[in-house]
Every structure is written in C-alpha cells, then in structure tokens.
C-alpha cells in the first residue's frame, strides 16, 4: 500500500493503461506541456510522448468529437475536460454522437471513449465552472457515469472505464485532488456499477457519491459521538450502471434513508434514487426518504456562503437528525 493523492491515483491509472494498451491516448487542453491544469497528467507527456499525450486547442466540440470518431475506429481516447462544466459546448458530440451512435447503427459501432475531468463546486469559481452534470449525462441510455470519492476508487474505476467498450464519463473533483488515501501497489480494477459501503451502521443509511461521501463520513462520526446514532454510508461510485441492490440492502437494514448529493434538487440523481427506493422497499421504510442537495440556485461566488450552498457535514448532520426525530 502507498499513500497517494486522488490526483496521483488518477495519474497512475492513466499511466498504467497507456503502458498496457497502445490504442490508449490522452488528449485535452493543457494535458501535456503544461502538465495538466490540475496537474493530473503531470509527467505523462515526457514518459509517453506527444503521440500518446496530446495537447488540444480550446475547442471542446472539436476535440471531443474527434475522440469519438477515433474511438469508432478502435482508438481508445481518454479525453480531459478541464472542467466538466465545459461539456455544454460539446453537448452535441457527447450526448448525440457518443451516446447514440451504437444504437442508431443497430449495434454495429462501438464508442470506447472516456471523458474525464472535475465536476464540482466549492472553489469559488462561480456559476459557469461549478456544474455537476452527472444527472444530465446519466439520463442518456448508452453512456456510463462514474463519480469516485477516494484515491483507491478513482484509480480502480478509471482503469475499468478505459477498458470499457461503451462511452464512460468520469467525474472527478478538484477539492478532492489533494486528498490522500491508501492505494495498493499491485494492479487492481474496480468494476463499474458496484457501490461501496464506506461505513457500516444500523440507524440510518446515507446514500451518496463524490465529495459528499467524505462529508457524510464526517457527519456520521459526529452523529455517533454526539448523538449515539449509527449511520451507514453507501458510496454509489457509479451512477449508471447503478448498484441499487446495495442501496436496498442497506435500507432494509436501517429503515431510514437520507440521499446526499452535490446536485441541485430538481431532477437530480437523488430524485431517481428516492423513486427507486420507495418503489422497491416501501414496506421497509420507517420514515419518508430525506434528501440533501446543493441549495437550488446557480453556484454563488461568495466564498463563505458557497460552503453553505453545498452539502457540508453540518447540513448533513441536521438533515439526518430531522429524519430520526
């Protein structure tokens, strides 16, 4: 085991897959010479050369579309979006072309592309750079959506994503890039679509993913210490495919659920989750399903207030107590 940052874990996954498969290429804005806008790809250009690690112009529709076209020919591009927020200028490529080309061709064409980059608020970069589009992406059949919360998960899931034959959208988090965690020295893969129980408990299930997993674990610790409440934290890790079975198993154990997400509430991932939980485990619920989201407005700039707009341990704690009241 080594202590790696989330950033290093992603980088190691890229380096290992670049080494393993000559069809893998890494492309994006500033991924090469600049060493990555968030230094995720640091050193990769030097190690693998410009054919495998390519700097693109600021041209998301162009280079993402190019990656999709190349993937149809069997290249395996891993495209970096400097921020997932920039997906909006490549929307047609991502959600018309990558998501639909297999279906429209009657299954004749595959699109083994990975698009990765950070998608989060909390860094005071304002409304245009703080989008969390996992709900919008996952609403498109044909794509897979991964949102890892730890270095271990980020590495194992990214390696699986790169080997996947369907388009995979991989949403990282700039706030987590510097967070450290244990990562095995030997190679490992984590299958997409497998949730992870990050903390076991018996009174309440928190279903979450991405950075709110870390915040929920902090809240769970406070709830245990200060309120003697035992919280189970289920990290979805992948939004689509969705490991609903692990969620339902936890619900059947605790009978109370709080869904926490760094999303706006309307049509968010939590809306789908709460629907599925009530549909499939209605008789196991002792209380209405609770939901804690980002406060429903564009991302505010004001640094101390943005903390309050997003999920945070205190907001999660309050929401949990309200459910257990």
């Amino acid at each position, binding site marked *: 085991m080594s202590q790696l940052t989330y950033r290093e874990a992603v980088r190691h996954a890229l380096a290992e897959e670049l080494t393993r498969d000559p069809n893998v290429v890494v492309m994006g804005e500033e991924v090469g010479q600049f060493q990555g806008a968030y230094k995720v790809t640091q050193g990769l250009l030097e190690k693998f050369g410009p054919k495998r690690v390519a700097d693109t112009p600021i041209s998301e529709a162009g280079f993402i579309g190019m990656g999709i*076209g190349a993937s149809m*020919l069997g290249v395996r591009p891993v495209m970096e979006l400097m921020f997932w927020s920039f997906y909006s200028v490549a929307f*047609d490529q991502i959600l018309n072309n990558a998501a639909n080309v297999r279906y429209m*061709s009657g299954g004749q064409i595959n699109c083994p592309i990975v698009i990765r980059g950070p998608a989060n608020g909390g860094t005071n970069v304002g409304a245009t750079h703080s989008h969390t589009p996992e709900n919008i992406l996952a609403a498109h059949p044909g794509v897979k959506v991964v949102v890892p919360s730890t270095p271990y998960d980020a590495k194992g899931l990214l390696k699986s994503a790169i080997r996947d*034959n369907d388009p995979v959208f991989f949403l990282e988090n700039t706030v987590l890039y510097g967070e450290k965690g244990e990562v095995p020295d030997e190679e490992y893969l984590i*299958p997409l679509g497998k949730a992870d129980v990050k903390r076991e408990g018996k009174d309440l299930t928190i279903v979450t993913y991405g950075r709110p997993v870390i915040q929920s674990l902090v809240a769970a610790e406070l709830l245990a210490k200060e309120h003697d409440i035992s919280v189970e934290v289920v990290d979805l890790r992948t939004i689509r495919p969705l490991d*609903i079975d692990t969620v339902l198993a936890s619900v059947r154990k605790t009978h109370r659920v709080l869904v926490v997400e760094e999303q706006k509430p309307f049509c968010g991932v939590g809306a789908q989750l709460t629907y599925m939980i009530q549909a499939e485990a209605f008789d196991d619920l002792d209380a209405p399903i609770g939901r804690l989201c980002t406060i429903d407005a564009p991302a505010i700039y004001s640094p101390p207030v943005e903390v309050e707009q997003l999920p945070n341990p205190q907001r999660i704690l309050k929401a949990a107590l309200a459910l257990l009241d």
Partner: protein
Amino acid sequence: MSKKPSATIEQKPNASSTSHGKAPINAALTQAQKIELFSQMVRIRRFEERSHRAYTGKNAAGGANIGGFLHLYNGQEAIAVGCCSLMGKHDHVITAYRDHGHAIAVGMDTKALMAELYGKVTGCSKGKGGSMHFFSPERNYWGGHGIVGGQIPLGVGLAYGVKYKGHKGSAMAFMGDGAVNQGAVHEAYNLAALWNLPCIFVIENNGYSMGTSQARSSAGELAKRAEAYGMAWGVCEGHDVYEVRATMDKFLKIAREECKPAVVEIRTYRYRGHSVADPDNTYRTKTEIEDYRRTKDPIQVFQTALIAEGVLTAESAEKIDEAARAEAEAAADFADASPYPTPEDIQKDVYWESDNPDQRTSQGRLFFN
C-alpha cells in the same frame, strides 16, 4: 413527379464533361467501370424515387410506410458516386442526414436500406436509425448523422484514427452548404489543419440550407474559408462525375501521401425539398428546378458523355434504368414483407455490455424502466 431520363431531352453541350473524362483517374477507367459508375447513379435516383413514393403513399393498413424525415439525394448523385468510387482500403466516409446516396455508393444493399426506411428489423440499422442513420462500418461508412455539422468532428476523428494506426488513407467528411456556419465545423477545420490529419471536408453545396439560400446564409466563398486555416481548397461542379473524380482524386492523393486536409466545395442541386415533407415553393421556383434538370442533370450528362464515348447506347442505358427500377421495387417489396422490430428489441444495441452479457465486467442496473 420525376420523369425517367430521356435521350431526347434538350441538352446543353457540356465541354467540361469531355475534358475531365481525359483526366488520368478517369482515362484509366475501363468501360465496365464507367458503366458501373453510371449504374450506381441511376440506382440511387430510382431508389430515392421509390422511397419518395413509399413516403407519400399508404401501406396496406392505411398508415405511412416511412415515418419521420426523408432527405432525398436526387440531383446530387454524381458526388457520392464520384467520391466513393475513389475509396481504397483505408479511406473512410461520413456524412449528414442526406445519406442514402453515399450508402449505395459504398455498396450497401438497397433492400436493407429500404427496410431501414420502413422501420423494419431487416433494415441496415435494424429499424433503429431510420433515413438519417445508415451505417456500414465494414465498408468504412460511418453514417448517417442528424445534426447539421455534428458529424464533421467525427470525420476528423476518423482521419486521426487512420493516421494514428499508421495507415495511408483518408476520411471524407461530407456536409451540406448549411453546415459551414456551424462552430463544430470550424473547430474540426482547425484541428485537421493543426494536426495534419488526412481529412477532406466535402461541402455538397446544393444552394440551400433547408429553405435559406446561400446568399442569405453564408458570407464569402464557402471553401475559401480553408485559407484561414492554411488548408488547400477547391471548387468543382457536381453534375459531372468525371469532374468530381478528377478534383477529389487530387486532394485525396495529398491526404493519403502527405497527411494534409483540404476543403472541397462541390456545386450541385437537389430536386426535392430539404426533406420530402417540406414545402418547395417558398424559396425557389419550379422553373429553377426544371432549368437545372434540363441542363445539368448528372445522370443525363454522364449518359450523354458515355454514349458519345461509345460506352453506352440509348438501349443499354435504358436497360440499366429498368434494372434500377426493378431493384428499387424489389427493395420496397422486401421492406414491405419484412417484420418490424419487437418491443423487446428496443433495449438491444444500447450498450456493448448489455449485448454481450457473457463478457460484461460492470455490475448494477444499466436500464431504468
């Protein structure tokens, strides 16, 4: 209503046809190859006319044979046929939604194409794509795409893939004149030029982006925009298959040998509306359409040239036309007799993994019903 080409229609003499016929790429054609080019153009015309009849007519149950949009290629046949006839093993094609001509030109079976229009499971995309989404990866034909200009970055990706794999080949990325103002097209131009990718951007300029004429939609000369990206460019007439081939051959050689992109505008005309259901009389006159048909119909022009060359006779041309009509009719019969996909088919072909469950590595639910 379309009349079959007749040798008696008044023809404007077409000198360019003869001179381009002497270009090396055309002079090298055998008689059989010339007849094949002619035959493909006629087959496209008859296929489109038959699909038009199916679209506007009713099936036995009183419903429509073909739903949605139907963007017909009539008038533009020499472009797809001329360009696709130059394809080698590592040359690829992608286009927008006016995609029937290219599909026939790369050799797809018209039965599977017509069945796709009818929404049948025997269609080339199993009834899941429709008119705008014909694909044949084994023939290097990558669709068939619906959003104006959206396929052009994919075309650059095909060129990138060819170069990445070290092949001497190219991608021909077709678009209409309406696509040249889309941002994605310019991003694609820049990438192809910046990275020296073997992509030929082919603008099939039929004069109208839907119902808006070129004069009302595009500033400047369309292909000349290539200069801003340091790319070569050219313009040619699209009614003369010899000219299309001679022009494209030049740029394709540069693409294959030197990995250089180019923009080629091919001037053409479409006889039908943007889509069949669109009104044709709000932005152009019947006279305009008839004038083009009378003087520049690509099939008629080539037929005249081939008769002059002694490759065809009026009688042999008529036989080719009859065979093309019969083929189109057989395709319609096949489509008509074929079954529709079932509701169980709706969720097939969505994910590679769900179609290959024994090789699946992910877990969890892929579908949410």
